[in-house]
């Protein structure tokens, strides 16, 4: 869906003056990698379902569930269980059902308008104008991090799936920074992650989740929004703690 612009500017790159002396950066790198996988998983849910993508999604859900003994150490796991239940039970919804629900919820609803928009602009723009200044702000965030949409991706930058994919990309950068033990670089990435989660994804996801509870008949999309909200809120707390630790170095 996306590719990384190798020529793009990465946060605070080129200034890894401080070497990180955290107890075990490799462990934090692993956690960032895990978070990346989870955000990518959520991003895929909010793309239009097709056979191939859906098969991969179910496989990923089974993998996550298989690791429950480990993941249950995180409080967000409790809020992921309804989603995993939907996707790993014996009779998960089929692609046709999901596609019908996706179209009705997010593309064109009964009255000609989708009941639950997947664009940040629909929630954050005072005039609810798509492709307006919210889209521009989000795109600016992408550009700063050197993240560009793949040419085959014909969506506005503030689409939920793309925002989640971007957070996943930031997690990947974070993992690299932990491995490199570069404190200044790491701090910049953590700050960007926190800013993006707080200002963009985290600020409208709860409202989307609220709307989906009423409108989603499959249960998959509302459970995914609940799961995403829980993960984002948890990560905001985690990033605050990590930033305070990095600042102490």
């Amino acid at each position, binding site marked *: 869906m996306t590719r990384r612009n190798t020529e793009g500017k990465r946060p605070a790159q080129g200034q890894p003056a401080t070497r990180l002396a955290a107890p*075990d950066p490799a462990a934090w790198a692993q956690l960032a990698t895990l978070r990346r996988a989870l955000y990518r998983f959520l991003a895929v849910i909010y793309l239009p379902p097709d056979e191939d993508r859906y098969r991969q999604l179910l496989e990923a859900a089974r993998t996550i569930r298989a690791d429950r*003994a*480990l993941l249950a150490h995180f409080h967000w796991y*409790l*809020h992921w269980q309804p989603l995993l239940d939907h996707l790993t039970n014996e009779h998960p919804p089929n692609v046709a059902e999901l596609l019908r629900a996706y179209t009705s919820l997010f593309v064109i609803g009964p009255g000609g308008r989708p009941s639950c928009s997947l664009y940040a602009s629909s929630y954050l723009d005072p005039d609810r104008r798509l492709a307006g200044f919210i889209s521009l702000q989000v795109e600016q965030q992408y550009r700063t991090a050197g993240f560009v949409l793949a040419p085959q991706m014909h969506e506005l930058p503030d689409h939920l799936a793309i925002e989640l994919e971007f957070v996943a990309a930031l997690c990947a950068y974070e993992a690299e920074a932990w491995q490199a033990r570069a404190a200044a670089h790491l701090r910049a990435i953590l700050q960007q992650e926190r800013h993006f989660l707080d200002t963009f994804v985290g600020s409208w996801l709860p409202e989307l989740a609220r709307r989906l509870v009423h409108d989603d008949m499959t249960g998959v999309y509302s459970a995914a929004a609940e799961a995403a909200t829980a993960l984002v809120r948890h990560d905001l*707390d985690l990033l605050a*703690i990590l930033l*305070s630790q990095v600042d102490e170095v």
Partner: protein
Amino acid sequence: MTALRGNGAEQPNSSLRIAILLCEHVEGLGNAVNLAAIQQWFAEHDPAVVLRVVPQLCTARPAGLPDLLAALAVDRIVFGLCREQRHLERIAAQVRQAGLDPLGLETVNLGVAIVGPTDPETATRTARRLLAGAVAKVRSYPGSSVDNVKPRLPHRLSRRGFLGLPLLTNETVPSILRRQCAAERGCTLCAQACPHGALQPQDGEIVLEKMRCQSCAFCVTTCPREALFFPGSTSAQIEAQVRALLAPEPGEVQPYGLLYVCEEVATTLAAVQPGWLPVRLPCVAMVPPTWYLAPLLLGASVVGVLPCSAHCPPALTQTIEERVQFAQHFLQAVGFPSDLIQFRPIDASGPVAERSDIQSLRRYPEPPGAVFSLQPKIIASLLLELARLGSDPSGASSPSQQSAFAHHAAPLGIVQIDQAVCTACGLCAAICPTEALQAETTAEHWTLRFEAASCIACAQCVSVCPEQTRGAIRVHRMISWEQLLAGPRVLAQDRVTRCVRCGASIAPARMVDRVMALLGNESPGLRENLAQYCASCRFIAGPAAGRPEHDT
């Protein structure tokens, strides 16, 4: 028990299935706890409870816990342990794995509650009461949200950990129930109360800075609207637990004392005499004055509090002492012995002394409604009930209508307005979080009403009064029986000045007078413009206002 959105106000659901998981060593406590008798009691009184003995429950990894919980298909869990569980974080993960909310888990340390050579019958009875209390508490648990958790970094990271991932630990923190919160009106009670500065008002909302929060739950009981939700410490949960702990049993004559215990010193309970039933709280400074009094109406022969000495900030210790003192003085004032409330009774004898005065409140029927609620009207009715029982042992008459009881820790108060100074701006009513003050403007009059039964003496009204330095408004922490019984009354009233042009209201007369007084010798035209025209007509009338030829 999947993630419910807690609002702290849900009713207990008797259909919930609850598992009591007991450590295999519980049976050996005291002179042998009779588990069969406990099981039989629950089968008779609460069939939704299943009781199981689990090997190694007090260790780090009880065998097969997630599978057991899944097989039992329960909604809530109570652990009955022989000692303090030091690996609660790992247990919480196993509970979460089974799809249950670990913040709703209640642990009862039977090891410290049943010590010494207690006879089997007493040991069994105590264990049963403590477990029934915990069951009632988890049944009233409304469920948490992700906001109720603060992740914390592990003390050290181990490369041998699970796949090298740093396993975070979680601390419980309060969440703010926006629909109940009065921050939009300017209320900042919880933010002022937080001893760690973790709650801050921000754009008409209260925001919790989790990094600063020390999970003391002190804020929870400062909010009269119960807008702060702390899993495990809501007034509804504590009341359910206390009612179950003190529930009368046929043939049981032993009086019980209720002891609020700080989480930090829960393990020192072993030093407490038998007969005290402990209620563990994150910090006992959160116990409001009425929580000391309410258990007496529910059958407690005495109520005590056991704070931690070393860890508690001095301000919190002082708060605890003041509230205990209030409860003691209040009891005395209404005709009961003050030692029904005891501060740090750890060295004292148990609450089983054969004293007729200690038993005095147990004669009265248990109140049917909530008595632990933080809402001022319920606080007022509790105090009135105690005063009624105290002043007349038959419980038939009302407290003296002449008397008032003043104390600096009183949970209620009264507001006084100096009508000569008040400018009738109404800011006091606008901020009042309990609506004890209500301003109303009719065609002719502006009226400020006050209801003593709704006033918690928070003094938010004083803080916003523009004339506070001139003594326009005063708040007194006192329980005025006369005002409580009288209901709402008019505190201030003024006629409304009307626009000479359109007839719309300008402001209460005394506000106009105050503005005139502040303007002093400003131009007469401006003075007349402000005093005679409403905001809209002032622009129309413009410079012509006040002149005799002005067309009205």
